[in-house]
């Protein structure tokens, strides 16, 4: 293939281009005249168009744009997910930042930027594009995490969170890069496709010490970004310190995009065929499931609980990924994709509920703040409960279908030990999810003064409603999405 690009190549890139355009316009807009609502509107519209573009392109697009990006059903599906997630978070952050003093507009800029990074990551099959996407997103995230910093009355510790995230993720990136360098040194290429088999017959899968060490370095870096145990320590602090929308973004898009890239890398280069890598991934999965759930067990801070539970969920996802190595067919990739989708939906929902009652001045992120919510705001509580039950993998919710998928993948490839751990983990998980639910069911003693929801937060309620619908519909009738994913996943595996 050539490095040159034709105009026709631009069409598949539309999602990326559109979101980039959005950012540029928003930036100019801010430069000309600060207007909160308008900036938000631009970002939202831009992301919507990008999402639509991805949706339109999805049915029949499968092209390698330069060696860097591959735009196929799989990447487009996740481009769509990323855009929508970004969109929702943008909508949610509108009321959240509403009361923040000045300079509120740039936040949407950062969301846009991060989204670009995410889009690049999900469609990258080259180390360069992976690095670009990843770092674009990370840079934006630093900004988002530290965002409320400039105004006096901010409850949480954005600074601490930002610094921790900056230093650690930079270190992680360095480790990842070193792994890339080793692989490059071993095979002489940076493209996944040629990593699998190159002219010199030096493949990643060849399992020479260089490639093994390289893959392990790479994995460590990725494991950090996915906050898999034992690389998870940063997660709760950053989640807690960051403003809710940033946390939501980090937790959803940040994780999802990274995982998609990982899937692509593994699937194309077949890195799991290295025995040691396979077993290491397996151990990562087990450790994440157990440690994540155990850490969340008696945690009282909602954000931290979700942080820990995300660790566990990444562990669950790894099971499906490992399964993809054992069996033919696309089932396990489907499982990964569906679970990611489910994970994004329910995590967004959970953070969304928290953010509609919170503002940048006062966040309600201690589970005790939600006592009696069921009797104060039944619908909000119902949504929250649904999200938590979904995270716990109870039927009628998308989370159950996701878990079902993972179980099936695991069963297909006979990963009994991992499945056992999964059962154990879920058992522990139930405890802390139900703890929150129980708080909401408690009779109301004294009112917790939530942020009074003005007209500006209507949209975010709308978002929650949509997420709830998705949760239930996909939980009860997932067939259409399944067929879509089946065809998308069949491109790999």
């Amino acid at each position, binding site marked *: 293939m050539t490095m040159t690009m034709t105009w026709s190549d631009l069409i598949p890139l539309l999602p990326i281009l559109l979101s980039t355009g959005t950012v540029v316009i928003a930036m100019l807009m801010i430069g000309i005249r600060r207007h909160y609502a308008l900036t938000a509107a631009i970002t939202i519209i831009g992301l919507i168009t990008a999402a639509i573009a991805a949706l339109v392109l999805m049915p029949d697009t499968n092209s390698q744009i330069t060696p860097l990006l591959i735009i196929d059903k799989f990447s487009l599906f996740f481009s769509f997910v990323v855009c929508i997630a970004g969109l929702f978070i943008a909508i949610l952050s509108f009321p959240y930042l509403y009361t923040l003093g000045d300079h509120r507009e740039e936040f949407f800029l950062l969301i846009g930027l991060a989204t670009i990074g995410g889009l690049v990551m999900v469609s990258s099959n080259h180390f360069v594009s992976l690095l670009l996407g990843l770092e674009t997103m990370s840079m934006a995230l630093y900004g988002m995490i530290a965002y409320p910093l400039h105004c006096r009355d901010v409850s949480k510790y954005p600074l601490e969170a930002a610094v921790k995230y900056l230093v650690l993720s930079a270190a992680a990136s360095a480790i990842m890069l*070193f792994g890339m360098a080793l692989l490059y040194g071993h095979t002489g290429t940076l493209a996944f496709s040629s990593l699998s088999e190159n002219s010199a017959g030096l493949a990643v899968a060849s399992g020479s010490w260089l490639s093994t060490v390289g893959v392990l370095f790479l994995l460590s870096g990725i494991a950090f970004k996915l906050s898999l145990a034992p690389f998870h320590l940063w997660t709760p602090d950053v989640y807690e310190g960051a403003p809710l929308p940033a946390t939501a973004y980090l937790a959803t898009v940040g994780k999802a995009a990274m995982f998609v890239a990982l899937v692509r890398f593994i699937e194309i280069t077949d890195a799991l065929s290295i025995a040691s890598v396979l077993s290491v991934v397996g151990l990562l999965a087990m450790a994440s499931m157990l440690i994540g759930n155990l850490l969340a067990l008696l945690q009282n801070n909602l954000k931290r609980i979700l942080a820990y539970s995300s660790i566990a969920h990444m562990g669950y996802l790894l099971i499906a990924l490992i399964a993809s190595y054992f069996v033919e067919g696309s089932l396990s990739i489907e499982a990964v994709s569906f679970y990611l989708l489910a994970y994004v939906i329910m995590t967004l929902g959970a953070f969304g509920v928290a953010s509609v009652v919170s503002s940048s001045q006062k966040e309600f992120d201690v589970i005790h703040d939600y006592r009696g919510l069921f009797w104060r705001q039944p619908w909000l509580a119902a949504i929250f409960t649904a999200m938590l039950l979904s995270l716990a993998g109870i039927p009628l919710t998308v989370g159950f279908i996701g878990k079902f998928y993972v179980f099936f993948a695991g069963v297909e490839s006979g990963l009994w030990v991992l499945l056992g751990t999964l059962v154990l983990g879920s058992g522990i998980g139930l405890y802390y999810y139900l703890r929150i639910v129980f708080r909401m069911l408690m009779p109301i003693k004294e009112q917790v003064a939530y942020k009074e929801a003005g007209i500006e937060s209507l949209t975010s309620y709308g978002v929650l409603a949509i997420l709830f619908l998705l949760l239930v519909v996909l939980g009860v009738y997932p067939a259409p999405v399944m067929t879509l994913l089946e065809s998308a996943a069949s491109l790999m595996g």
Partner: protein
Amino acid sequence: MSPIPFEHGLIVAGILFCLGIVGVLTRRNIVFVLMSLEVMLNACGLAFIVGAARWGNADGQVMFLMILTLAAAEVAVGLGLIIQIYRRFHTVDINVLSQMKG
């Protein structure tokens, strides 16, 4: 003159990388921590250059450029945050940033 063998270059890069790591671990002054991160990143860059030299293709150099930009950006943001830290705590010791735990 004969080219430097691939392994040697890699070993140098590795040593550099480890130095960076040691720096990050041992330093409590956040400025030095950032510098150590730079060292790590540059170690990667070196590794890429060595690889490029081995295979005689440009990808390595391209990657190095990317790494430079990345490092620059990291530092930019990092320094911004350091200023904030200094404003608040009048110190640049990283251990002041330990209010969240458990």
